[in-house]
């Protein structure tokens, strides 16, 4: 966004140090949402925050080299498709739409699988939506 931001050594080093931990925390929130606070939405936002931090410090051009436009755009729809696809899958397997019980022989296992897939769908869509919006705002040079 601003060229002088790329000169700050402390910001560059600290953000490089922090970004892996933010990514790890996002994954933790994604997979641990069944047991503690969190879930797909929060994980997606935190994941996007790591990329946005990278974009703020190193510039949008470099961020676009890490996640090109086609990646965020296809992930944007991929997440929604995953969610709705789980619903269609349950329909095809003889249940109602988004009725996870039919996904496995044991109903609770089916529920676990369904919730896991659905949360991944939410996380993917939210993360790519946030990155897309950030790049749309920060990528223009007036």
């Amino acid at each position, binding site marked *: 966004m601003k060229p002088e931001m790329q000169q700050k050594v402390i910001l560059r080093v600290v953000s490089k140090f922090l970004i892996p931990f933010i990514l790890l925390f996002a994954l933790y929130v994604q997979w641990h949402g069944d047991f*503690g606070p969190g879930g797909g939405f929060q994980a997606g936002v935190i994941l996007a925050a790591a990329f946005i931090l990278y974009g703020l410090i190193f510039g949008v051009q470099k961020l676009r080299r890490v996640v090109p436009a086609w990646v965020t755009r296809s992930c944007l729809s991929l997440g929604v498709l995953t969610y709705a696809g789980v619903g269609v899958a349950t329909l095809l397997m003889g249940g109602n739409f988004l009725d996870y019980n039919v996904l496995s022989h044991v109903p609770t296992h089916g*529920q676990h699988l369904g919730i896991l897939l659905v949360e991944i769908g939410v996380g993917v869509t939210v993360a790519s939506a946030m990155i897309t919006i950030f790049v749309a705002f920060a990528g223009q040079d007036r």
Partner: protein
Amino acid sequence: MVLLLFMLATGIAIVRLRDLFAVVMLTGIFSLLGAAIYVVMDAVDVAFTEAAVGAGVSTVLMLGTLALTTSKEKIPSVSFSWAGMLLVVVTGGVLIYGTLDMPAYGDKDAPINQHVVPRYLEKSGEEIDLPNVVTSVLASYRGYDTLGETFVIFTAAIGVLAIIGRRRRKKYASSDVGGKNGSDKPAKEGLS
């Protein structure tokens, strides 16, 4: 109570300040205070979302907007009007009157605590078998709602792309095309 007072002070400061950079920072603080209130009310999942979205990402997006526009608010030319003040006070009064009917926070006789909440708390252990009931309500019992929310976010990103992303592409396209083929194509794109 202290948190609510802090939120009130922040809100008044947001209204009074003309420096939009400070206003954006204060809205971030406002969201953080809101997240703290949710933690006090034991709604950790909501607090998580509020802290990440309200205090984090939306502040960055607002700063990005300020970088594109200006960081000083224009002083409005309209002076104080008593009719507007009356309208605001009456509307606020009606809204507060509307909340008087609502059950108090944590009231065990409230309708939601009579049917839905005990049902979820008792049965989700056998039906879903997840320790976090919030997740099972969000993703399974209310799966349709969450699907709708995901579509809302999808639509929001598509909308931003359609409004802002397009102008940028047109600029690139017109400069590219103008360099190669002359001034014929950009005019057509402007029409379509």
